[in-house]
């Protein structure tokens, strides 16, 4: 196991280098002057462009440029995002926690409920429960997220006056942004708990419910279907028959012997789903006026905020690389055959 982890970690190095080269190559589309403009905060400072070109070696040979750029990136200097008027790294730090918070609620719900429904669906194959589960899951998958989001808002906020959009109610967001409230993580629920403010915690939770329901409804079909087919496959295997022949109760046969073997494809998809969600659930965030990273990136793209888009690309790349790493480590944990390859 340890050797496997070490090997997998070593593989990170070439992948990361590859990612950096790819993004640097995209940058080369622009002329040195345009690239210098990425670092300019104030349009009035444009006359200093020569100085910036010299500072970042933008007219030097490629390899010099690459290493200067890389060292700037590693120091967190990704340029200036004019759409939100702050450095790109600062913008990621501001908008990411909101998305992380949303994903932290949606993914466990999606995956756990999805696995549970998938197992039920497989063990009741071709019976009413199976058909109902699959029909509901597919219905959720087919719903456009903006439509589902709007319907949920109009029912629960417009009609019932609970579960408002946004991240916090106005009075609470004033408290949160006041100096007395320490922002440990940027995630409202966790910060509220750390600050001992239960009221804000409940308020943040209320705001999270609708987007979480939207994301779960839309993505759960994926997990249900994959879990179902995995379970059907492993239930037909001889080791399940052998487990039954041992006299094990059906519950143990399904939950121990069949389920673990069916989990591997679910892990792959869950990993990718998590990374995909973290790198922007633009529509859901926009519908619920929930200012996360997807909201920022989409805005930046429409306003031709190139440093922001590039910074976002680096961030997304890293995200997928690490999601894959975690997926691979989980594989090895679940399936011993992978560990020893």
């Amino acid at each position, binding site marked *: 196991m340890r050797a496997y982890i070490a090997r997998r970690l070593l593989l990170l190095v070439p992948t990361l280098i590859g990612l950096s080269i790819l993004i640097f190559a995209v940058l080369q589309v622009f002329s040195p002057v345009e690239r210098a403009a990425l670092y300019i905060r104030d349009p009035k400072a444009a006359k200093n462009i020569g100085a910036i070109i010299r500072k970042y070696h933008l007219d030097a040979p490629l390899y010099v440029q690459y290493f200067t750029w890389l060292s700037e990136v590693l120091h967190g200097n990704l340029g200036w995002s004019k759409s939100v008027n702050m450095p790109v790294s600062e913008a990621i730090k501001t908008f990411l926690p909101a998305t992380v918070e949303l994903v932290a609620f949606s993914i466990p719900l999606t995956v756990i409920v999805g696995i549970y429904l998938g197992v039920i669906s497989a063990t009741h194959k071709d019976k009413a429960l199976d058909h109902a589960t699959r029909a509901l899951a597919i219905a959720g998958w087919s719903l456009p997220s903006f439509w589902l989001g709007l319907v949920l808002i109009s029912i629960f906020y417009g009609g019932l006056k609970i579960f408002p959009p946004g991240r916090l109610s106005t009075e609470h967001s004033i408290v949160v942004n006041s100096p007395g409230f320490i922002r440990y993580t940027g995630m409202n629920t966790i910060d509220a708990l750390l600050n001992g403010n239960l009221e804000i915690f409940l308020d943040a939770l209320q705001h999270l419910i609708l987007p979480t329901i939207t994301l779960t409804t839309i993505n759960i079909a994926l997990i249900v279907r994959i879990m179902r087919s995995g379970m059907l496959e492993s239930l037909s295997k001889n080791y399940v028959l052998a487990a039954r*022949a041992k006299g094990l109760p059906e519950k143990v046969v399904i939950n121990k012997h069949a389920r673990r073997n069916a989990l591997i494809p679910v892990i792959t998809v869950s990993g990718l789903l998590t990374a995909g969600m973290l790198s922007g659930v633009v529509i859901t965030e926009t519908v619920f006026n929930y200012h996360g990273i997807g909201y920022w990136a989409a805005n930046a793209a429409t306003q031709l905020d190139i440093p922001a888009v590039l910074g976002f690309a680096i961030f997304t790349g890293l995200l997928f690389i690490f999601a894959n790493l975690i997926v691979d480590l989980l594989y090895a944990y679940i399936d011993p055959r992978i560990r020893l390859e």
Partner: protein
Amino acid sequence: MGEILKVEDLKVRFYTYEGIVKALEGVNLDVLEGETLGIVGETGSGKTVTSLSILVLIPPPGRIEEGKILFRRGKEFLDFLRNTQVMYQIRGKEISMVFQEPNAALNPVYTVGDQVSEVLVLHRRKEFLKKTVEEIEEELERGTGFKKFLLRIEKKIYSGMLKEQLPLALRFLLKVPILNRLGKSRFNKEVRNEVVNILREMGIGDPERVVDMYPHELSGGMQQRVVIAMALACNPKLLIADEPTTSLDVTVQAQILDLIRELKEKFKSSIIYVTHDMGVIAELCDRVAVMYAGTICEVANVLELFKNPLHPYTKALLESIPKPGKELKAIRGTVPNLVDPPSGCRFHPRCDYNMPICSKEKPELREIKKGHYVACHLYKR
């Protein structure tokens, strides 16, 4: 010697898209105490379905439509087709099964030890708990001070588990994975030792290492030994071996056969040995049942069957064993499709002695000589 298992008029159907597969059509079988009964037949003759039916393990879309499976317990026969409770007690404990392909019968994601101990914990839990309590009592006599205090707590837990009167709080605490491992470490050690012993009995060298290995790290022969270990972990009264050597190479086959023979001597259990290999039958079995297309066509003592086969199919089957210097005789025709099986005797389209009655009436299994049963219109008395 009485019967230990009686299968009466078993009918199994598979409901597939191509139609209803009539896999078993009125199978009758008796297994005597301590004997080895061979079931022989071509692929698709219903050998495996018969053996799976005995444990009520027919996978969907298959269904046992009719018949009784009677297993003797003490003096009475229990029909566990109609009594699921009894079935769960008998499976794995009194009747166990060895499967065709060992690498498919072992779960790839659990260690050998995990899979063998599962049977032990399921069926012999009390025995191990008792042993653990005794061990603690022994240590209590020697222990002093704080250690004695800890041992007392441990004893309380184990005797509580033994009487199944553990306080609710403790039962809940033992559900937590880490506490479970800590609280039951002594019990788990006891079980593990027994697993090692069983593996050693199965002729596995270095069992302490093998316990912690995963199935894919073992060779086919070793895997089959592990599967046999799982089957024999509770000293079953009846072992069903479904072609246990078919997927192994010849030298390993011989080793596994030797092992089965040895274990039969030792445990005195009855064995149903399913195979298509007449050689193995001759070597291992006391009695043989010959199956064709979901029916039993002949049952006899091994020597009797080889010397004096009565059913035309048995004759043909014995002639099709390759012998040096002789031309190989194959049975003409092919195995019928069981969605639409031949009427009357299912063998009649391929039979050399075909008579008009054969396609009209299904022959019953009748005793022609003492202990020699045959289902064929040729021997009507």
